[in-house]
C-alpha cells in the first residue's frame, strides 16, 4: 500500500533507532509525551519502545476521545437510545465502553434499543433520510479530526430541512487538553510534570495546522514535533525532539509535511466555526473539568442539537478510587504503578479511562507490553525431586 508500507520498514526503523541512540546525550533523560492515542497504539503495536535507548521515556497522553469521554455521557447516550422509536447512530468505538449499572451501548442494543454502528456521520444522515418517521440521533465524539464531518452533516440536515435528525455533540479540543496537562492544579498534588517535549497529533493537525502548538512551544518552553501515525514517523519525531532538546530549542517542527501545513484545512476550520461554539467547560475522564475544551452546537443550528431537543442533563460518574489515570495521563505515573492495573482493571472491565480503548496508555501496555514486566526465568526441565535433595 503506497504511502503506508514504506513508512513501516523495519530496516529503516533500525537506522533511525541507531540515530536516536547516537543523538541521546549520556546522563540525560528525555521524557516525551505522545499526545495521541494513534501514536500510543503505533508505539505499542510496532514495539518502538524496544528500539529506543533507555534514556528516552515515552509518556502516553490523553489523546484518545473514547478514553476521555466521561461515563455520564455514555449514560446519556443509552438514555437517548431507550426512548421509544429513536435510532441512535454511533461510531463503533463507543459500543463497548462500560457505563453505569453494568450497561454499555452494545448491551443496550442487545436489550432491544435501536443502536446502529456507523462508519461515517454521512451514514447517520442517510439513516435519518431513510426513516422520516423515526427520530435519529448521531452520537458525535472525537477530536478536531472527526469534528468537520459532523459539521458537514448538520449543515446538510439544515439544507434538507430534515426534522428527524439531531446530533449529541461531544467533540473535544486538543490544545485545551495539552494546556491542562501542563498547568492543572492537580499538578501540585501529583508533582511536577516530567514532560520535556511533545509529539503532536497527526490527523488533528491536518485540520488545525501546526500554528496552534506555537503557543506551547513558546509559553511552556517545550518543543513540539507533529508526526504521522506510522512507526517511522514516530521514530523520526523522537529524533527531532532529542535534537531540539540537545540544542536547547523549543520550537514547533513538522515531520508530517506530506499532509500538514501551518494553517491546516481552512475549509474544514471555517465549517466547524460556522456550526460549533466553545463550551465553557467539559469533563474529561482522567483529567476532570477542563475549561473551554469542547464544542457545542450553535444557536443557529439548535434544531439539530440533541442536548436541547431532548433536554439531556449530564450527571458525572466518578471513576474507581484506586484509579491512577490522572497521574498516568500527565506522565507522573506508569500503568504498572496502579494497584488495579491488570487485576481489577482490564480491557474487558476497564475501571479508568486509560484502559477503555486500545489507544489508551493502560490498554496498550496490557495488550502489547505487560509480559515484558515479568522477568523470564529459565528453569530446567521437570525432573522427579528426590526428597532431601533440594537445595
Amino acid at each position, binding site marked *: *500500500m*503506497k*504511502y*503506508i508500507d*514504506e*513508512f513501516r520498514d523495519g530496516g*529503516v526503523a*533500525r*537506522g*533511525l533507532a*541507531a*540515530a*536516536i*541512540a*547516537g*543523538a541521546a546525550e549520556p546522563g540525560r533523560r528525555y521524557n516525551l509525551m505522545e499526545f*495521541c*492515542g*494513534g501514536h500510543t497504539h503505533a508505539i505499542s503495536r510496532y514495539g518502538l519502545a524496544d528500539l529506543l535507548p533507555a534514556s528516552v521515556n515515552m509518556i502516553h497522553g490523553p489523546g484518545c*476521545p*473514547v478514553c476521555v469521554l466521561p461515563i455520564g455521557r455514555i449514560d446519556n447516550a443509552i438514555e437517548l437510545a431507550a426512548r421509544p422509536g429513536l435510532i441512535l447512530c454511533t*461510531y463503533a*468505538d463507543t459500543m463497548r465502553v462500560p457505563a453505569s449499572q453494568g450497561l454499555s451501548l452494545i448491551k443496550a442494543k442487545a436489550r432491544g434499543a435501536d443502536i446502529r454502528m456507523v*462508519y*461515517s*456521520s*454521512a*451514514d447517520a444522515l442517510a439513516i435519518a433520510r431513510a426513516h422520516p418517521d423515526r427520530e435519529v440521533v448521531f452520537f458525535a*465524539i*472525537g*477530536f478536531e*479530526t*472527526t469534528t*468537520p*464531518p459532523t459539521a*458537514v452533516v448538520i449543515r446538510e440536515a439544515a439544507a434538507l430541512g430534515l426534522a428527524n435528525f439531531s446530533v449529541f455533540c461531544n467533540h473535544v479540543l486538543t490544545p485545551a487538553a495539552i494546556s491542562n496537562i501542563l498547568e492543572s492544579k492537580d499538578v501540585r498534588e501529583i508533582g511536577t510534570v516530567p514532560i520535556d517535549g511533545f509529539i503532536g*497529533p*497527526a*490527523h*488533528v493537525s*491536518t*485540520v488545525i495546522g501546526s500554528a496552534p502548538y506555537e503557543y506551547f512551544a513558546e509559553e511552556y518552553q517545550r518543543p513540539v514535533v507533529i508526526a504521522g*501515525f506510522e512507526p*517511522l*514517523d514516530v*521514530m*523520526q519525531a523522537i*529524533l527531532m525532539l532529542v*535534537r531540539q532538546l*540537545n540544542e536547547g530549542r523549543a520550537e514547533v517542527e513538522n*515531520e*508530517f*509535511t*506530506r*499532509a*500538514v501545513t501551518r494553517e491546516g*484545512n481552512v*475549509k474544514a476550520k471555517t*465549517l466547524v466555526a460556522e456550526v460549533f461554539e466553545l463550551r465553557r467547560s467539559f469533563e474529561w475522564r482522567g483529567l476532570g473539568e477542563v475549561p473551554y475544551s469542547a464544542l457545542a452546537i450553535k444557536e443557529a443550528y439548535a434544531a439539530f442539537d440533541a442536548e436541547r431537543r431532548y433536554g439531556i442533563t449530564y450527571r458525572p460518574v466518578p471513576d474507581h478510587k484506586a484509579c491512577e489515570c490522572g497521574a498516568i495521563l500527565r506522565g507522573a505515573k506508569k500503568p504498572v504503578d496502579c494497584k488495579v492495573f491488570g487485576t481489577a482493571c482490564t480491557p474487558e472491565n476497564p475501571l479508568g479511562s486509560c484502559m477503555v*480503548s486500545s489507544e489508551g496508555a493502560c490498554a496498550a501496555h496490557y495488550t502489547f507490553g505487560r509480559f515484558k514486566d515479568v522477568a523470564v526465568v529459565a528453569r530446567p526441565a521437570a525432573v522427579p525431586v528426590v526428597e532431601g535433595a533440594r537445595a
Partner: protein
Amino acid sequence: MCLALPARVVEIPEAEVAVVDVDGVRKRISLALVDGVACGDYVIVHVGYALARLDPDEAQRTLDEFARAGLAPQAAR
C-alpha cells in the same frame, strides 16, 4: 479514533464525491472538506471524508530524511 489512511482517488462520479482505492478495497467518500481533488491524487481519509490531499513530493522528502538519519547515526548528534 483519529485513524485515517492515505487512499488513491480513482473516480469522481459527482461533485464532492470520490471513489478511493486502498490496496484493492474501494469506497465512496466525501470531498466536502477538500477542494480541487483530481483522479490519481492521494487523500487522507477519515470516517468517510477526505481531510487533506497528500503531497507526494513532501512524502518523498520525509522518506529521504529517514534514510539520511539512519545512514549517519553519529552525524545526528
